[in-house]
């Protein structure tokens, strides 16, 4: 079984597509119709996502300010994802911002953190919790976390991010092959470097497309002036220039050598660029300018369970595509000789 890794790659990607697109998101509290509360009775219209409220299963609703709770006096279920809750807001809440919490009878605690600006603040109130409170109920089942802004688009994590990992892998393969070409002078090594750049550019374009769609959904623009995006654009430009360089020299040995030198030079400068760039300016992209990457609290275990296989699967697919492109290059050269 020499080809086990190809089968593994396909199996992983099939699983990633099935799970990545098939698994539901966790329920979430999406919207509440006001952003400030003042002392006195307040009616809140709450919109949730993927919940199953009904008259029989009325959730409990409370607001929480600096650890002190006030329960809703009356909760009316409008439909499965809409609620109306009346809260008698007391005077004297301590903190500026108040959270809104909804606890369905059968499931996860849903919270909208820092939902309200609080007016009429004071030194604190006596806690008024609703009957027995189970703080962190968690519904059984495997579901992806539901983050505000990201919502369903969080599944793009399994497609967008591995594209760039795979591209970096292929460009690294290409540099190694270029180094070997400079040592050996063999056109086969150069063909391998070229094949890796071709496949790497394909992944770069896919990464740009998936990233652009994701940016449209979360940030509202197809392209923003963002360090990661500029880095991606420049990387693509550099390798496009690599192809132009090859195209402008007719002697294959000379083209191979010049391209190898440019490839190594460009790769090192790209690495420096990708290190410098994030430090130059703020960025909307996760992992830059104060935005958390998908780190321990963002990329939780449920996402990881699909994300790591996705990275491995795409890398295996990319490597496979590279070996195919390399074989094509060899055949082309044989054909040219014949």
């Amino acid at each position, binding site marked *: 079984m020499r080809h086990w890794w190809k089968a593994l790659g396909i199996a992983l990607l099939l699983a990633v597509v099935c799970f990545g697109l098939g698994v539901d998101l966790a329920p979430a509290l999406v919207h509440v119709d006001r952003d400030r509360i003042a002392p006195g009775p307040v009616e809140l219209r709450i919109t949730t996502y993927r919940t199953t409220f009904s008259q029989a299963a009325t959730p409990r609703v409370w607001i929480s300010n600096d650890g002190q709770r006030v329960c809703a006096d009356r909760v009316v279920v409008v439909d499965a994802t809409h609620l109306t809750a009346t809260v008698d807001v007391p005077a004297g809440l301590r903190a500026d911002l108040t959270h809104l919490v909804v606890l369905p009878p059968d499931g996860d605690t849903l919270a909208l953190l820092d939902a309200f600006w609080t007016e009429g603040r004071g030194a604190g109130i006596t806690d008024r919790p609703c009957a027995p409170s189970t703080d962190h109920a968690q519904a059984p089942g495997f579901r992806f976390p539901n983050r505000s802004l990201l919502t369903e688009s969080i599944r793009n994590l399994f497609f967008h991010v591995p594209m760039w990992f795979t591209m970096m892998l292929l460009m690294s393969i290409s540099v190694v092959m270029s180094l070997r070409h*400079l040592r050996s002078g063999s056109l086969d090594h150069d063909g391998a470097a070229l094949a890796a750049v071709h496949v790497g550019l394909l992944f770069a374009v896919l990464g740009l497309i998936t990233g652009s769609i994701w940016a449209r959904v979360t940030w509202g623009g197809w392209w923003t002036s963002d360090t990661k995006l500029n880095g991606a654009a*420049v990387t693509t*430009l*550099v390798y496009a*220039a690599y192809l*132009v*360089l090859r195209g*402008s*020299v007719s002697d294959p040995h*000379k*083209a191979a*050598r*010049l391209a*190898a*030198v*440019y490839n*190594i*030079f*460009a790769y*090192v*400068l790209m690495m*420096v*660029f990708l290190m*410098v*760039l994030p*430090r*130059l*300016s703020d960025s909307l992209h996760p992992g830059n300018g104060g935005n958390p990457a998908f780190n321990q609290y963002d990329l939780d275990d449920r996402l990881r369970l699909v994300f790591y296989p996705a990275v491995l699967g795409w890398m295996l697919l990319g490597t496979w595509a590279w070996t195919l492109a390399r074989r094509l290059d060899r055949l082309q050269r044989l054909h040219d000789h014949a």
Partner: protein
Amino acid sequence: MRPSEIAAIVRLELALDLRQRAAWAGLLLYSVGACYIGFLALRTGTATPVWNALLWIILLFAAFNTLTRAFQREDAGRQLYLHTLADPRSVVIARTLYSMVLMLALALVTVAVYILLLGGHALREADVALFLLTVALGGTGFAAVLTLISAIAARAGNGVGLTAVLGLPLVLPLLLSALRASKLALDGIGLNITGTYLLWLLLIDVLTVALAYLLFPYLWRD
């Protein structure tokens, strides 16, 4: 690679350039002309970010203009002759050093003309020493990167056009760091913050020279 060999090649370059006064005049004219166009387009009193950006764009294109020549003026015969005489590493180090010095001089002259035409109001609060240091490091960085690129393009036999295509994406890290460092220096922010960017510039300069030293022998061989 011997220092005397490098010095000899630098002297050769200088002699060749001194023989072609028109080329020098062309470079200077480009700088003055570009600054004058900037002046006509913006007049004086532009905001500091614009002042800064325009200066670096002029410097960038001055660098392209100057350094595409580094390996272009050589015909095959003379190259072969040099090949038999000198170690390729000496050639590339000498030419990189020469380009750096040339670019440094050109950058300083350009800055002077630019300030003369567009006004020095941006320098009022500036840390002038840091600003000049940024210009020097940025200019020499452009020189280092573009010398190697120019060598590749010259070997590919399609000089000027290819240098721009290959060079533009690769000078971006330098350009962005330099823009940021010089903006900070113009705002009068001290070495403790600006220093990071200057270190990046220095790192890129050193890295480029090292890569040129390692890679050039492969370009040289035919």
